[in-house]
């Protein structure tokens, strides 16, 4: 499985999705699904991505996205889908 869940948590700001998506497009990461919600005034976004065609290793992608998040004052986290799948699906 090459699916990675990308979560973005923080104060809502213009251009968060654009910045993350632009990076993903440039690295060949395919976005399968996006959903978002507001919890206690915090913006929560989750992307399900396929990194099969990704041109950089997982660690680089993860730290690049984290940096993009930091620049916009939000927290971006990349995790392999398996941890959620294992915990919530039998």
């Amino acid at each position, binding site marked *: 499985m090459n699916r990675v869940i990308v*979560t973005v948590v923080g104060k809502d700001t213009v251009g968060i999705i654009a910045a993350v998506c632009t990076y993903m497009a440039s690295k060949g990461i395919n976005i399968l699904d996006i959903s*978002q919600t507001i919890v206690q005034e915090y913006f929560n976004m989750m992307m399900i991505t396929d990194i099969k065609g990704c041109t950089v290793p997982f660690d680089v992608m993860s730290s690049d996205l984290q940096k993009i998040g930091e620049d916009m004052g939000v927290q971006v986290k990349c995790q*392999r889908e398996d941890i959620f*799948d*294992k*915990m*919530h*699906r039998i």
Partner: protein
Amino acid sequence: MINISEVLETNKMIEQENLDVRTITMGISLLDCASDDLEHTCRNIYEKIVSLAKDLVKTGEDISREFGVPIVNKRISITPVSIVGSSCCKSPEDYVKIAQTLDKAAHEVGVNFIGGYSAIVSKGMTCSDVMLIRSIPEAMACTERLCSSVNVGSTKTGINMDAVRLMGDVILETAERTKERDSLGCAKLVVLCNAPDDNPFMAGAFHGVSESDAIINVGVSGPGVVKYVLEHLPQDTNFEILCEAIKKTAFKITRVGQLVAQEASRRLHIPFGIIDLSLAPTPAIGDSVADILKYIGLEQAGAPGTTAALAMLNDQVKKGGVMASSYVGGLSGAFIPVSEDQGMIDAVNAGALTIEKLEAMTCVCSVGLDMIAIPGDTKPTTISGIIADESAIGMVNQKTTAVRIIPVIGKKVGDIVEFGGLLGYAPIMPVNTFDCSVFVNRAGRIPAPIHSFKN
């Protein structure tokens, strides 16, 4: 497909409720390292450990980064050293050489503990067992990452009282030899009854002779997650709903452990052994088994009802965890160390929790009297008496029990002792000072209980 609320739930467990995988422990058999030459044996041991475990720490860190879940410890357990060194060690000093080799190997591969400086003497002690046990104080004093354990009894064999008596002396001597560091040596030394062969948790981890060449065992954790769930249930929630909530949480926690274990096994090309379903607390605020007991409805751990609440908690954790993992083993139960659990420390300070109550609690959970600091002037026979009591509980109830007790040299009841890191800190607890030396000084062993004859 996974939805956002599930993702947020998992990440909240990790970020706010201290969900982590407590340890990936690689079990390594050292049976093929034995020889009749000490130098040769030490070289074999070092080379085998370093070659098998060289990628353990990095693999743990990679998995942790990719899945976003902390893996706190990477550790090694080995074949009990009394067996490995039996043909080449002619004195306790020879065993200390092996201890130093193990410590060096642990530093080389970067693990924080290596366990298995052990002797299994539940029925009798060989000459090499006695030499290893006598070398423990020196071994604990001159190493940093080595953990030692001695199994003094089992349901099948009874209790080896000669070993129990010897361990009273060895624990005090270990305390004396490490007194500059608040007798820290005793925090890495545990006396067990019914010790499992596949326990990933220190200080009692060793790689039993029934195990294969190398294996990956994983210990999960998560008292903070269970606490959070109970915190959000109304106070008048009935037992059915309470138990279901604990079970579901234990299931989720254990699935993460299972995933990590399988990944580690795949990446290291070493078979997966077991998941240890234990609620293992840390000194971090909220990551406490005592706090769970409070939310179940006790003012402090140690209040009447504590043993029942703990029995229920322990059982639900197992019921939830068993289905989440393909193989369960090790100790599997709630841990109740004093120094490593802020709620337990608070209970002792409040006068709610005594050694006697802790002993009762050990009847219904893993593992035993754990990380308890006692006055440094406690008699060795008293320590042996405490070990005998705890072993009897294990022997009769067909469960693992253990004693990891620290007589802190130079400290008295009410003083505080600081061990640092995951080992935490503890108030010195009073010990019953009535004499038991006549009982402890009897030679031989206590016979196995009648219900062990099942053939």
